[in-house]
């Protein structure tokens, strides 16, 4: 079996070359993720000051905000690669868009679960109908719909094309959704960066800000790692399909 694989690789020297390079990138990203995560854990749990009223429950805030950041970034990446796909029609762009949307949905779920935990200790209620929460919820629905489009049957380029169109529409919708909802009702959320129109900026202690920024960095690296891994999985899947097809053709002949 391994002999066979080696022979296949020898026949395709190019793919082998990218393969070893890929393993390096993946290892570096993995290492960077682990290290930056550990550093941010230290800053969150030991370095950062404890919040006065919420105590330890406040720590979830770092993960909440970072996940939200990651999700938004993931959807933005999907948007960019959707446009690129429609212009260039390269399958690799479609893979990036798809994997990024999947990661985005997972982290939106994390946001939507950590949010209520935070809300419980901060506002004494599990869920509030508040702009950012609703926007995130709508965002979640939009990208679940995006993934539903991917589940359609048909050839890949049709699915990729339709999903790309929806990826663009969906992302263009997000700011409008946010403004509409914000306009509709503005209440609870503390504005962390900058000032809101009707609310006081909550403000943070410096140590908290450092911890937050570190966590965000760690999550960004985590995202890069997940994206890289996801895309290489997709590539492998396609390769397996191609081999299958080749075998099938041989058997037919």
């Amino acid at each position: 079996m391994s002999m066979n694989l080696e022979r296949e690789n020898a026949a395709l020297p190019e793919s082998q070359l990218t393969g070893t390079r890929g393993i390096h990138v993946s290892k570096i990203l993995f290492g960077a993720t682990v290290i930056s995560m550990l550093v941010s854990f230290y800053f969150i749990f030991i370095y950062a000051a404890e919040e006065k009223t919420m105590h330890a429950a406040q720590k979830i805030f770092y993960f909440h905000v970072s996940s939200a950041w990651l999700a938004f970034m993931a959807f933005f990446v999907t948007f960019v690669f959707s446009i690129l796909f429609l212009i260039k029609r390269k399958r690799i762009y479609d893979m990036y868009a798809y994997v990024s949307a999947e990661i985005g949905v997972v982290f939106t779920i994390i946001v939507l679960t950590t949010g209520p935990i935070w809300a419980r200790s901060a506002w004494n209620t599990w869920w509030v109908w508040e702009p950012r929460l609703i926007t995130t919820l709508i965002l979640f629905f939009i990208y679940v719909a995006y993934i539903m489009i991917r589940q359609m049957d048909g050839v890949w380029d049709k699915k990729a094309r339709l999903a790309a169109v929806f990826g663009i529409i969906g992302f263009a919708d997000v700011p409008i959704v946010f403004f509409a909802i914000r306009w509709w009702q503005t209440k609870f959320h503390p504005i962390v960066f900058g000032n809101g129109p009707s609310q006081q900026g909550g403000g943070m202690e410096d140590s908290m800000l450092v911890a937050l920024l570190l966590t965000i960095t760690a999550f960004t690296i985590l995202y890069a790692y997940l994206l890289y891994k996801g895309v290489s999985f997709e590539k492998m899947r396609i390769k397996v399909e191609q081999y299958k097809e080749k075998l099938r053709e041989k058997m037919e002949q």
Partner: protein
Amino acid sequence: MIEIKNLTKRADSKLILRGIDLSIRKGETVAILGPNGAGKSTLLKVLAAIMKPTTGVVKINGLDLKKNILDIKQLLGYLPHSSLLYDHYSPLENLVFFGKMYRVHDVEQRAIRLVNEVGLSFFLNEPVKNFSRGMIQRIAIARAVIHEPEILLLDEPHTGLDQGAIAILNNVIVSMKEKGTTTLMVTHDFKQAAEICDRIIIMKNGTIVDDFYIEEQNLGFVVKKYQQQVEGVS
């Protein structure tokens, strides 16, 4: 009239067309024969501009299929397996609607004349949904030629028709041919192919394996060639 160079079509990882090179002159009537899954219908769909080729160049009347798509569509008449007719509409309404799409002058006169030609003038105002398969196919061919196309693409037009309907269909094709229309016809019906076509193309596994002209409706010759290529009989 039609120039195809190195045309391939890939669906997922399966190659349906693997490098088609073909040139068809104006006024030729060409039959495309081949076993199921040879890519005949796909080739026709690519020519009808409802499927994009993966690679390759298609030129029709000197126009590139990618760039001058609207001009080319005006030249094409396409009849696939399905009738492309609206069930609730009568033959007249169907033909008038599609005629207007192609900006045909005096569309109603032409529609009535075509319905007469296919022998259904009695059913001019009946909804299509009550028609039999043969009647629908006759209206469908009338729909495909409503704008007097210069190229006619037919996908198994004879399937499921009785002798009378076949005769009427062939009449329409032959009368179009006399006006100088180029016809491409995918078919399994060797007899009809030999009867009305003057060139036969045999496809297998996404490539053209044979391409020859026939004279005097020589059915035996076509069958022999087909068996050689497809069934491996020599």
